[in-house]
């Protein structure tokens, strides 16, 4: 039986293939079950694609475990797609819209699996150590001054929560979904915290006369 969802998507402005998907998934007839099965096949394809792309991060995991991850991702994505079917506006093809749910589920599950059993270390109150984590030489005066200014701003201008989130995600490479799970919050809420912390850093640097060269300016030097 079709699940209840938001107001039905009107198929009139959709491309033919998308319109067919929507009509089948909103039907009350026997075609509904077949449409859901077809949708699961589509989502499983995307989930397998994502797990395969991330297989090096998963280490020595068995093929059957990869398949389990993909199946779980497709199952969860199926529920999400059916629940949000009324949100589909036809801004893209239906299959593209559906794929993103499977890729999201698989990506989150892979990242969480990689970090399963690993401790998520948050920075101590007295933390300082950006220079040790840089990936390129930083012995010139202007980069040194920038690092000093950032470290001061991280210590003095951020709340402890902002500092934890900023350091964990940008310096300790803890995936935002993993951190969200450990802190019992959401990716969106953590990114808002990260965004606010970055804004404070930029403001602190600007107050010291340290303007940040824009990405495009660096690229066109």
């Amino acid at each position: 039986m079709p699940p209840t969802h938001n107001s039905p998507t009107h198929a009139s402005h959709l491309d033919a293939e998308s319109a067919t998907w929507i009509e089948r998934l909103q039907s009350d007839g026997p075609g509904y079950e077949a449409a859901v099965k077809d949708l699961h096949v589509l989502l499983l394809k995307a989930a397998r694609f994502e797990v395969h792309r991330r297989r090096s991060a998963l280490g020595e995991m068995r093929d059957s475990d990869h398949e389990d991850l993909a199946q779980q991702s497709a199952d969860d994505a199926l529920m999400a797609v059916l629940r949000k079917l009324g949100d589909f506006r036809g801004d893209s093809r239906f299959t593209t819209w559906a794929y993103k749910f499977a890729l999201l589920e698989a990506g989150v599950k892979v990242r969480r699996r990689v970090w399963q059993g690993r401790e998520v270390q948050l920075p101590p109150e007295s933390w300082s150590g950006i220079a040790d984590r840089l990936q390129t030489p930083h012995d010139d005066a202007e980069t040194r001054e920038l690092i000093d200014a950032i470290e001061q701003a991280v210590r003095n201008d951020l709340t402890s929560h902002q500092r934890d989130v900023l350091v964990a995600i940008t310096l300790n490479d803890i995936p935002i979904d993993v951190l969200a799970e450990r802190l019992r919050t959401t990716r969106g809420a953590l990114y808002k915290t990260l965004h606010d912390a970055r804004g404070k850093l930029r403001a602190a640097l600007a107050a010291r006369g340290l303007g940040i060269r824009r990405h495009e300016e660096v690229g066109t030097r």
Partner: protein
Amino acid sequence: MRVPADRDPRLSGLLGPDGPELSCDECFDALDRYVELELSRSEADKQIPGMRAHLHGCPACHEDHESLLALLASER
């Protein structure tokens, strides 16, 4: 003094994108349209402002974007 934060990926990640950017939810909402615009070379960044900045600032959404782009490209 103007310092080149993009010189190092760590500094770039710490400071994040400058200018307005989408939230994670807004990014997910527009991701399918954005990727199709990219693949059809239809000025995706002009039509969905703030998306590129968010993809620069959020590693997880960046991965989601790369994956959707790769999946669609593999079907062409």
